[in-house]
């Protein structure tokens, strides 16, 4: 049994707390819905919203302040409710699909050609089928070695984008060029980029009706056109593998929410978001607001932290370059930051199941798939069974809703090597290409797989997210076979103080923003739920 953390002075014990710890292994408590409170506070009628009678789908509606609630909030406790009201948190059926991205033995004695070969082996039957669906069943699908001049046909292969500005280690160390290392840029594209299609044996340059700046190296596509005189292939049309098949999700009876959060940036020099983070923790554990808001917070069934839990400034590069005797006594920046994270997580896991994914600046391996953070770094919170340490591309099923996503490294890499800027657009693009990270292993670090490429999407998720976006974006898309996917670009919490709430019943997402004011203002910090 876990004692709920005391946040108020003892004489003003908060009577309303959400405790999920009791439902995990403690003695079974009967469902306690405070009868007195229900009579008093009139629940908002399941809505006559602007679109007519709708069920409360938005979190803000579920936890809307009730009439007369202000008096409830500030009244003295104890006289009306003899027992503290505890809202039991909803518990969805959770099953992680962890084996896909876990690495067992790690052998780096392999070249990366194997990933590309398996990628093509896995995707070419799918693409052949799509090509036949799009351009007719009698379209000729040829290998590059069997191409004939002027013949309209379809070819399937991996794209390679030749970019002049792409940093090349060979150019850097070549003595005849006498070049200094190139400074890092935001985008490495230029007008002179060329697209080349490679299949198992040959490669051919592409020109024509294809937008060079939208594609990145490593995407597998099918192209329809003809080879012209000069040895280049003229593209008339192309198609991607598009969305994979989706198992339909079960309809839920009540609203259940998942809180998506990323980019906490703990241990950084700016502590602006610490108060907002504490507000978030308090809101989720039900220690903020009146009963309406607390019962609303009880519908948050899971919290998912999508990467960059530590700030970039904890990655101390000087320690690796300085002499050992200078750095012996200094502690790494990550030690204090991890302690902060552990303490924050302990508050959360006492009340709600949490999935923790590592990100770019977190202490785990650099290459994708990033392995889960080790539980020895969480001495306080790893004693709770509700803490789930997950890998970087993370996949899980919550009540029949498949959730898949990354901490954002794949999206940022594609952003550098293509003309797309919006994280959501890139996310949709990767879904249509049916591949989580097409630029791996070319520009994104990746483990040398040989058996299968685990980044190929075999089943369509219902919620597809990527973390550490500069701003919040969400969209619902529909596939050709009726698949429905909610795309979410989770904003970075350290700069935007915004988290996302996904309703598992309706697949809608809304942002939740915790704004706090600096010490100079007289107003107290407030929490506003805006959408």
């Amino acid at each position: 049994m876990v004692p709920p953390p005391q946040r108020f002075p003892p004489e003003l014990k908060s009577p309303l707390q959400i405790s999920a710890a009791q439902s995990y292994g403690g003695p079974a408590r009967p469902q306690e819905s405070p009868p007195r409170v229900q009579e008093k506070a009139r629940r908002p009628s399941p809505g006559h919203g602007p679109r007519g009678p709708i069920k409360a789908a938005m979190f803000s509606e579920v936890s809307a302040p009730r009439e007369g609630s202000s008096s409830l909030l500030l009244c003295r406790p104890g006289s009306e409710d003899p027992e503290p009201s505890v809202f039991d948190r909803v518990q969805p059926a959770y099953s992680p699909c962890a084996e896909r991205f876990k690495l067992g033995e790690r052998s780096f004695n392999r070249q990366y050609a194997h990933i590309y070969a398996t990628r093509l082996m896995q995707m070419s039957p799918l693409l052949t089928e799509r090509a036949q669906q799009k351009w007719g069943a009698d379209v000729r699908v040829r290998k590059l070695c069997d191409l004939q001049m002027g013949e309209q046909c379809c070819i399937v292969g991996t794209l390679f984008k030749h970019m002049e500005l792409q940093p090349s280690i060979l150019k850097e160390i070549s003595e005849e060029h006498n070049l200094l290392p190139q400074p890092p840029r935001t985008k490495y594209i230029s007008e002179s980029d060329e697209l080349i299609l490679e299949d198992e044996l040959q490669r051919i340059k592409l020109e024509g009706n294809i937008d060079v700046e939208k594609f990145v190296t490593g995407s597998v596509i099918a192209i329809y056109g003809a080879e012209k005189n000069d040895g280049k292939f003229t593209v008339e049309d192309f198609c991607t593998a598009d969305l994979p098949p989706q198992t339909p999700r079960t309809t839920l009876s009540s609203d259940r929410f998942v809180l998506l959060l990323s980019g906490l940036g703990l241990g950084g020099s700016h502590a602006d978001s610490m108060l907002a983070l504490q507000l978030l923790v308090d809101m989720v554990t039900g220690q903020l607001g009146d009963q309406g808001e607390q019962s609303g917070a009880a519908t948050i069934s899971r919290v998912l932290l999508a990467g960059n839990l530590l700030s970039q400034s904890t990655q101390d590069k000087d320690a690796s370059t300085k002499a050992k005797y200078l750095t012996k006594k200094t502690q790494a920046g990550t030690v204090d930051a991890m302690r902060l994270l552990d303490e924050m997580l302990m508050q959360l896991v006492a009340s709600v199941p949490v999935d923790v994914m590592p990100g770019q600046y977190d202490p785990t391996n650099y290459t994708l798939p990033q392995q889960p953070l080790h539980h020895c770094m969480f001495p306080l919170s790893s004693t709770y069974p509700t803490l789930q340490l997950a890998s970087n591309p993370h996949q899980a099923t919550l009540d029949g809703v498949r959730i898949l996503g990354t901490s954002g490294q794949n999206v940022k890499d594609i952003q550098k090597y293509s003309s797309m800027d919006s994280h959501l657009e890139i996310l949709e693009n990767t879904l249509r290409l049916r591949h989580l990270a097409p630029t791996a292993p070319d520009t994104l670090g990746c483990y040398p797989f040989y058996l299968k490429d685990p980044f190929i999407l075999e089943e369509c998720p219902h919620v597809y997210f990527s973390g550490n976006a500069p701003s919040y974006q969400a969209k619902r898309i529909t596939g050709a076979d009726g698949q429905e996917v909610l795309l979410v670009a989770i904003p970075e919490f350290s700069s935007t103080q915004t988290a996302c709430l996904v309703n598992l019943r309706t697949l809608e997402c809304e942002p939740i923003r915790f704004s706090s004011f600096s010490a100079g203002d007289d107003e107290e910090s407030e929490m506003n739920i805006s959408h």
Partner: protein
Amino acid sequence: MITYKLIIRQKPKCKDIEHNCDQVSRSAMTAKRAGLITDSYKVVKRSRREEKREKRAPSPPQKDAEPRPLTARDKELQELRQFDLDWRYGPCTGISRLQRWERAALHGLNPPQEIRDMLLSADTDPDYTHCLWSDYPL
């Protein structure tokens, strides 16, 4: 009168040639004294012919004997090498032949079952398990 003598001393391949070399040098000197160059030419031709004969001498036994038949092991290794070089199953370096076979089977490329049987029967022999390029660095 100044005479320039070019003396060619070769590393002797066998005793006869050594003898001939000395003869060459000696006859060169004698030719200059005698004035007949055909003496030295004769010697060279003779030594060449003798060399050819000597070279040809061991060759007839080779032509007569048949090429050694490939043993069963050699045939199997040859088949495995052909499996390595087959482009349909992807790159062969860095992974064992059995792993490559399993990968091909997983992706539905139908690799021949005999290869798998061969690999499983000789799983301790590195010539069987490792690919053609396993001696070379990554």
